[in-house]
């Protein structure tokens, strides 16, 4: 990186500040098209969601059927459906913390190990990455029927808890492990954290592994010569050198935690596993769907949480950066 930028510098100074027509066309296309796509597929839906959250629309009749209702959807969410939205917010929050402390750390660790060119590294890599590419239906089947079935599931069988009066309701028991007033962390949500981790580890691992490949091996050799042990080398040399990837991994972890959806959906979203994204889909596309206004209002709550978390995370990161 450093090498290339120094080499570029003299060019930049001497550059003529006029673009040829071909340059202009190329620039317009290269910047214009992505911008257009970005606006059309990111900003337009986001703004539309915010607008729709102030309306009453069943999503079926034409856009002429949209009626503005002010803050009614928000009022309903926080007074009538409040137990759903607070439970969901708590679960999403727990997920952020859990993913950082657990699967993200483990994924980074696995990536570090695999980067050592272990024998059969590609096989491990494939095994850990498989969960990320499995389809929703398969994931649902694996966790509901193979792993957590109270009568014939793997875990219950290993624990010897398959007898009729002695079964564990892994996915249905929404009683609280930790209570905060009327709300809390449900037991079945804790059970499903294992499934979330199972997917997240592979994702982070592949991402981090790609980053590690770009770390100059000379850096590590230098560290080794200076007498660093493995942990010191990782903490003081590799990890700081991976800064751009670390930011991406952090942001992805937050986003994954807040938009978590598929596994819970594949399990028929049992009580205790409320998530904001599930509330959104229940209201938009579920059989109880056709409630675009309220669904969008849940979406806006989710959007605000995401933006809030990411801003906080990045601000924190850059502040630390500047302090150095």
């Amino acid at each position, binding site marked *: 990186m450093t090498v290339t930028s120094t080499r570029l510098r003299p060019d930049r100074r001497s550059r003529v500040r006029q673009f040829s027509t071909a340059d202009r066309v190329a620039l317009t296309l290269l910047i214009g098209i992505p911008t257009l796509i970005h606006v059309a597929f990111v900003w337009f839906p986001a703004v539309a969601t915010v607008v729709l959250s102030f309306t009453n629309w*069943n*999503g*079926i*009749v034409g856009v002429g059927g949209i009626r503005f209702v002010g803050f009614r959807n928000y009022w*309903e969410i926080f007074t*009538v*459906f409040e*137990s*759903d939205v607070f439970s969901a917010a708590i679960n999403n929050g727990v997920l952020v913390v859990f993913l950082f402390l657990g699967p993200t750390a483990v994924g980074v660790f696995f990536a570090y190990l695999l980067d050592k060119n272990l024998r059969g590294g590609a096989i491990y890599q494939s095994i850990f990455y498989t969960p990320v590419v499995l389809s929703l*239906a398969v994931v649902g089947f694996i966790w*509901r*029927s193979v792993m*957590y*079935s*109270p*009568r*014939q599931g793997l875990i219950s069988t290993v624990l010897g808890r398959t007898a*009729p*009066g002695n*079964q*564990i*309701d*892994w*996915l*249905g*028991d*929404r*009683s609280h492990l930790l209570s905060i007033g009327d709300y809390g962390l449900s037991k*079945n949500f804790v059970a499903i954290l294992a499934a979330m981790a199972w997917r997240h580890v592979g994702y982070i691992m592949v991402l981090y592994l790609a980053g590690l490949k770009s770390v100059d091996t000379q850096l590590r050799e230098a560290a080794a010569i200076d007498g660093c042990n493995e942990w010191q080398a990782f903490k003081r040399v590799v990890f700081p050198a991976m800064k751009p990837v670390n930011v991406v991994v952090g942001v992805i972890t937050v986003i994954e935690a807040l938009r978590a959806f598929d596994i819970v959906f594949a399990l*028929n979203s*049992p*009580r205790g596993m409320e998530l904001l994204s599930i509330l959104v889909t*229940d*209201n*938009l*596309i*579920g*059989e*109880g*769907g*056709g*409630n675009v206004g309220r669904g969008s209002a849940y979406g806006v709550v989710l959007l605000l949480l995401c933006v809030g978390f990411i801003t906080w995370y990045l601000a924190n990161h850059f502040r630390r950066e500047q302090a150095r």
Partner: protein
Amino acid sequence: MLLGGTGLASARGRVGSTPAGSASGTLTFGSNYSDEIPRTAMQAVLDGFPNDNVEVRVNTVDHNSYQENITNYLQQPDDVMAWFTGYRLQFFAAQGLVGDITDVWEGIDNIGDNFKATCTGEDGKQYMVPFYNYPWAVHYKPSLFEEHGFEIPTTLDELTALATEMQGAGLTPFSLGNDAAWPAMGTFDILNMRINGYQFHVDLMAGEGEWTSDEVREVFATWETLLPFHQSGPNGRTWQEAAQALNAGETGMMLLGTFISEQFADNLDDLAFFPFPEVNPEHGMDSIDAPIDGFMMAADPDNEEASKEMLAYLATGEAQITYLTLNPGSVAVASDADQSGYTDLQLASAELIAETPNIAQFLDRDTNPEFAANVMGDALADFLADPGSIDSILSDVEERKQVIFT
């Protein structure tokens, strides 16, 4: 497999009597018959479609996902689609998402008016053809009852006594699997209709009754006395697993639709049912849930002619019997269906439906879909998890009902 083979052969044999139509081209067919037995049986029905000029493309979607995605799906639908009759149809018909097939019904003379009514939208037009229906009843294994000398109960007291006796014999009296949150609706429905009667059920489903009323509380109070007799931890158990526990002799009874027979494919002779016993003498056993499944057409099908031919074919006794031979969990709605091949269970189903004066559909088919899917499923799951919190559950239901039904 053997069953599948013979069924296919007999289906082909009967096809001759339906005249082949003039339609041609491709017909897309959306199916939620996703478990193995229903899927094979539905394929046999489609193979029996008499018009060889029409190529039927089947799009099978997991049963629960199909329901959950229905609103979205109906906006890019297949030509002919599986669905449920009643309020659940009318709601989508009223939005203009389902095709008018009144002209198909003009050619149907083998299906009764009570069925036709459930296929009719609020505007008086028909939007579905019914295919089969099935009663919800208490299933048991006759061999088990014989072995222990259990008697079929006809009142709630007898049911409670039987359940206690079963516990004494080391059995869990009731199987219950409420994963996906609809099976418990069957228990609620039958207790509600036994205690408060059919009309109360209809009003409550229409959003008119109050969920915090004494009548509804009485239903949950009765249910609570029965809960200790049920398998614990029902919310994480699929109905299939619960049915297997019954099949394995771990439990004594299970309230479910007769589609439970899918889990008894190896043991069909040892499955029988009785209607849920009387609770309130005023209403006796005068109502049951007997949901109707059928098929509808897209509002704007790619191949309308073939769609209507297909729907007319599905309304025939032959098509229905082709299906029901391979998946004998339900009974045909067509009066010309050849019942000679019915299993004992099917004969009993037909008899129960015929002799019960009030036929309800099912909670999630008799009320607003949003109310059923987003409110009642959760509320009943919460009740099963923590019966003590019923007061706050019901006040939440009432509050949400008022928002949804406005």
